[in-house]
């Protein structure tokens, strides 16, 4: 989507949300176009591969549609939707099926080989690849805290862990990242 095609104001977004709340899927499609990049980015960083990231993204939008009446305009729609995407991704992480099936190969780093909105310098690719190799919970906390800007209390509530545990995961993730980047660069 071209930059100039993005919705100009939060008021335009609210109009679309209200239309979607009334059942207008065309308005919801416009919201999808506006927000899918942000939703997909967090799903991709929390998932194992692009296929799972796509499935999580779809689930997030479907769940958002089903719960649109719960959007009270107290926060930005993008914030509300993003929170749903995070919960969908975390819920998937928690499932026993996924835990058993999960085998992350450090060599399989193709998810970040597709184009991103801005040309990604080599350093960015190293960083993304290193994040992808982190242990599951440490990676989730790092993505939510350092990239998405959530607080430990919020992360703890979403992940069902104590804020102190969230801090410990973050410390571990940063330490591992530093070590891996030092070896990579």
């Amino acid at each position, binding site marked *: 989507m071209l930059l100039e095609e993005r919705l100009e104001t939060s008021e335009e977004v609210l109009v679309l949300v209200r239309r979607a709340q009334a059942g207008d899927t065309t308005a919801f499609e416009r919201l999808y176009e506006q927000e899918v990049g942000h939703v997909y980015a967090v799903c991709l960083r929390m998932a194992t591969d692009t296929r799972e990231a796509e499935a999580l993204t779809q689930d997030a939008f479907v769940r958002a549609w089903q719960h649109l009446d719960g959007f009270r305009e107290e926060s930005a729609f993008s914030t509300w939707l993003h929170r749903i995407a995070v919960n969908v991704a975390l819920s998937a992480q928690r499932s026993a099926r996924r835990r058993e099936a999960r085998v992350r190969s450090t060599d399989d780093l193709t998810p970040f080989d597709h184009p991103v909105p801005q040309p990604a310098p080599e350093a960015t690719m190293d960083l993304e690849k290193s994040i992808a190799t982190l242990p599951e919970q440490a990676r989730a906390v790092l993505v939510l805290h350092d990239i998405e800007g959530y607080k*430990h209390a919020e992360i703890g509530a979403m992940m069902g862990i104590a804020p102190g545990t969230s*801090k410990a995961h973050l410390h571990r993730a940063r330490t591992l990242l530093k070590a891996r980047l030092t070896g990579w660069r």
Partner: protein
Amino acid sequence: MSDYLDGTLPAARQGMVEQHLSGCPACRAEFERLHTLVAELSVLPRSIPPPRNLWEDIEAQIVPPDRTREAPMRAVRRGFSSWRRLGVAAAVVGLIGLGTFWWRGGLSSPAWEVTALAGTPHIGETALTKTGTLQVGEWLETDAASRARLQVGRIGNVELAPDTRLQLRETKATDHRLALAQGRIHARIWAPPRRFFVETPAGLAVDLGCEYTLEVDDSGTSLLHVLSGYVGFVRATHEVIVPAGWLVRARPDRVPGTPFSEAASPALRDALVRFDFERGDTEALTEVLSEARPADALTLWELLWRTEERERGRVYDRLVALVPPPPGVTRTGVLARDPEMADAWRQRLGVDVMYWLSYKKKRLLEEQQ
């Protein structure tokens, strides 16, 4: 150290770590690596387009088979009655008002802790002997014999030198804003980039993850000196990115000046002031070029974007003599202000390309248009 970086340690332990870092080069280097990592994470793309359009799959899950897109507004989802909808509409109107009130800070007026480091600083008319709090809108002032430290929420601190006037303008999760009317501050910020701002009469200092000093004299002229990381200095559509070890001067009635190195000679600094603010263009530029050493290469690089086409060739030739350009960078391309070549050369000069791509390239491209 991770907790210290995030500002989540108790104040006493925060101070202990700070004290230790100031005397331990090894830990300080470790802290700098961590700080850089967190800054890099914070500027990763927040949006990545999926490799294929997912809408059709989503639509198939949200539209019942008997629904058509031609008449979407007629569909009533989940039996939501028009009366309930009316009630919600009324509530929404109320919430919008409440939300606006909230957004403007009406429900909270967080205060920042201030500590007197020497003498008797003042918050408004109130003398501060030990500690106090600074509310949004209030001024913190030091006289010739006093100094103070301001805790910037949980993301850093700012020390006020003597004879300084500073106002707390705004404090939100994503926007901590001060106004420096006069004097000198030393800011240490460990938040992700673009969360901490200092307004001056000459422009806005934008923290990009760093430590810096900022001075404002009686005429409103600002001098920014970056000690670690990067700081942006913005006035209207003009922005300069200043890396560690570099300074920039700005005047209230002009675009921000050209950055110069801590190692720049006094003669180069003087010539730069004339070039930037006194319009002694040709003569001042000649002096800047002759005074420039390899350590000043970034100044010359910046001048490529500040000179008319007829003078740009002279800047290029001097810059090439000081620091050879990387492969692929040509005179013709640089004189035409090719953004890719600009990035490549800038990287050769040691400036982190990530910040460059995120902040500077956009500006260069805008200038091209």
